[in-house]
Every structure is written in structure tokens, then in C-alpha cells.
């Protein structure tokens, strides 16, 4: 089964609207969002390459910042949860997955207006657990790495 064969359980439900209308970066499209918190913080963008690999992105605005003007670690981890979770779900063949653990290392600041990109990798999957990592970049420079564990619901 390839990733594109998986139909999301929420597919067909009306997607939620984001409070902000943001033009996607070149080559990206807006994702359909069904989680109220992701819609609240979104839009979030996606690029699907010819080989099936995906790149995810968001554009930092004033809703995402710390008092000093850099992007808040909570927003970076929210972005990670959304897209590492998507990778876990696609990797498991479309079974619902919930976060068990997520670790993030903050390598550099992202700023307002930056396009923050995320590339995910399924490191290992067992019947009940998905191991997913990701790297986050701005203009090709690393800003965060994340590793995570996901429970595949209903499996043990």
C-alpha cells in the first residue's frame, strides 16, 4: 500500500476554516484541517513530490511568536505533532495513532515571515508502535529536530 492509497477517516467531512487567509508558498497547497487547534493555528501547507515524498510547511505570523519575536517552541511542537502524526498514520496504513512521546531539540530561531518546512521519516514500525523522526528547516538551514513514538490504536 502506498501513502496515497490511504483515505483519511475524516475525508469528506467539511474541513475547518482558519482565522487567517495565507497564500501558500510556491509549490505548496493548503491542507484540509479537521482538528480545531490546527485550524486555529493554521493554515498548514503540503507539497507532494513526484516520488510520493512530502514536505510540510507553515508561515510564521504574529500568532506564533514569543515575546522576543522568535517562533514559540509550543508552535514548533504543534507543527511537529500535526505532521509526525500524519506520517505515523500513513505509515500504519491509515490506522488511528495517538502520540505517546515527542522530543524536540531547538537548533536555531525561526522568525516572523519565515517559511518553516518539515520532512518526516518513519524510522521503524511494529504492529502497535510507530517511530517517527523529522527535521525542520528555514531556507534549508536546520531549526529543529524531533523524534516521536505513536501508539497504533487497537493493536498490542
Amino acid at each position, binding site marked *: 500500500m502506498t501513502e496515497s492509497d490511504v483515505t483519511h477517516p475524516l475525508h469528506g467531512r467539511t474541513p475547518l476554516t482558519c482565522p487567517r487567509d495565507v497564500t501558500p508558498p510556491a509549490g505548496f497547497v493548503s491542507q484540509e484541517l479537521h482538528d480545531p487547534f490546527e485550524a486555529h493555528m493554521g493554515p498548514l501547507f503540503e507539497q507532494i513530490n513526484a516520488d510520493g515524498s512530502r514536505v510540510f510547511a507553515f508561515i510564521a505570523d504574529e500568532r506564533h511568536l514569543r515575546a522576543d519575536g522568535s517562533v514559540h517552541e509550543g508552535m514548533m*511542537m504543534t507543527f511537529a505533532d500535526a505532521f509526525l502524526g500524519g506520517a505515523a498514520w500513513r505509515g500504519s496504513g491509515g490506522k488511528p495513532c495517538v502520540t505517546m512521546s515527542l522530543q524536540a531539540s531547538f537548533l536555531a530561531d525561526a522568525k516572523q515571515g519565515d517559511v518553516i518546512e518539515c520532512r518526516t521519516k518513519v524510522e521503524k514500525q511494529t504492529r502497535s508502535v510507530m517511530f517517527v523522526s523529522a527535521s525542520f528547516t528555514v531556507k534549508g538551514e536546520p531549526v529543529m529536530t524531533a523524534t516521536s513514538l505513536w501508539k497504533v490504536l487497537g493493536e498490542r
Partner: protein
Amino acid sequence: MTASPFPAGFTQVQTEGFGGFAGPVMGGTDDKGPLFLMDIAYQHLNGADRLHGGMMMSLMSIVMGEVAAATAKVKDASAVTRPLSLNCDFVSAGETDERIEGRAEVTRATRSVMFISGTLAVGPRVLMTATGVYAIKAAE
């Protein structure tokens, strides 16, 4: 449902930017030390009508970040703290209208680094345990 009022003396923390838009998160002190409170509302949910994992980590990062900053400022009022690494374990789910209590304590602080652990809970039920490593810097 009308949420119960927050205890006297509690005020919103991180009112601007992400903290203000994602929260509100209230901060104060009780007999056990610094305490942070957030009521779970619609905009905090995931597609399964539970607290979104990103919001749970966001709240944890605000709780640990506030305790890190307050601790560093005791020694040097101009010090700023930045997270180097956060590790969050998702112990149980949060439901709409529940009030989350967040706490964090400093395990060790050196001149340049601080180790913190934190917990989010609803009553006796733990939602999240977390550890963080923060850098302590003089103001630029």
C-alpha cells in the same frame, strides 16, 4: 457550561503572541508553589474532540518556560532562558471543559543551563510528564 472562576491572584501569563492566542493560561501560586491553569475549550481540541497533542505540549512549554524564566531572574534580573530540548510524554487524554493544572520544578541550575521537569494533570489524573533543558543567557 460556565467555567468556575480562577482563584484570587491568578493572572494570565504570556498574553501576547502565541501564548495569548493559544491559551489563555493563568498563573499564580498555591501552598505547593507556582501553579498554572487552563480550561480546555473548543479551539484546543483535535479531530476526536480531545485536547490536541500540540496544545498539550504548548501548555507544558509555557509552564516550564515561565518557571525557567522566573528562576533565572532570581540570580540575574536581565537573564533570558531558551529551550534547548523538550521531551513530552502523553500519559492520558484531556476532555472539553476540564481544568488543567500545570506545575514545574527546577532539578538543577548551573550558570548556563537549567534542567526542569513538569506535569500537567486534571485532579488526580496525570495528562503529561515532561523534562526540559534550557539555556540561560545574559540579555543581548
